[in-house]
């Protein structure tokens, strides 16, 4: 992990909180990308617009 990436993940932690920072850290710490890693990334985009905006 380069210093730039570490810095940006640190910024993400401060600005967006631990969840986003942790997700980014996981993404950038992968040396070998498995099928499960890809599935996890693509799965987020399967969420429909209605799922984001449905009443709480």
């Amino acid at each position, binding site marked *: 992990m*380069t210093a*730039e*990436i570490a810095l*940006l993940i*640190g*910024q*993400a*932690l*401060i*600005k*967006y*909180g*631990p969840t*986003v*920072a942790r*997700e*980014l850290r996981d*993404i*950038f710490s*992968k*040396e070998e*990308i498995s099928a499960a*890693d*890809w599935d996890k*990334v*693509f799965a*987020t*985009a*399967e*969420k429909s*617009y209605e799922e*984001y*905006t*449905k*009443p*709480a």
Partner: protein
Amino acid sequence: MEIIDQLAGIIPPKYVTYLTALFIASQVLGRIYQAIVSGGGLRSILRGIWLGTNTPKPKSETDSGIAEKLSALVLIGSIAVFATGCKTPEQGAYRTIGTVSVSVDAAMNGWGDYVRAGKATPEQEIKVKAGYVKYQTAMRVAKITVASYKAQPDGATRLNSAVDALSAAGSEIVTLVQLFTKGTP
């Protein structure tokens, strides 16, 4: 000092220093713990230590967390930095696609809060939904390309094109959401 004087009366002097340090440390650790539990992140931890409070400012229900979630455009703007130094095209694609995915998800979560707060107009909802569907389409193309690029002679070029298209679609939806919710992209 009053506490130290009181302790000195009950506890042997050689232990007073340790107990005082423990007392102060417990306050600092307590504030750090409270900051973590309240989900405020590093900023809240530092506020807790230096300013003596980590209680988040009371926000209206409608604005809760929206600003933070919608600032994800900065992440997408940093993709060029993120993708550098990758060992393989696949790793570069994974980092870029992953960053876009995290950014758009954060923005859409913020948009969901905005819609539930009753602030979004029907026109805005139509535009954001269309932008999100476009992003989903770009993501499906990227998924197919990732699965097949190694078997094609021009696979790396196709992968780059798919990733670029996805980045553009991701930036578009995040910009749109920021524009509608904050007034500026």
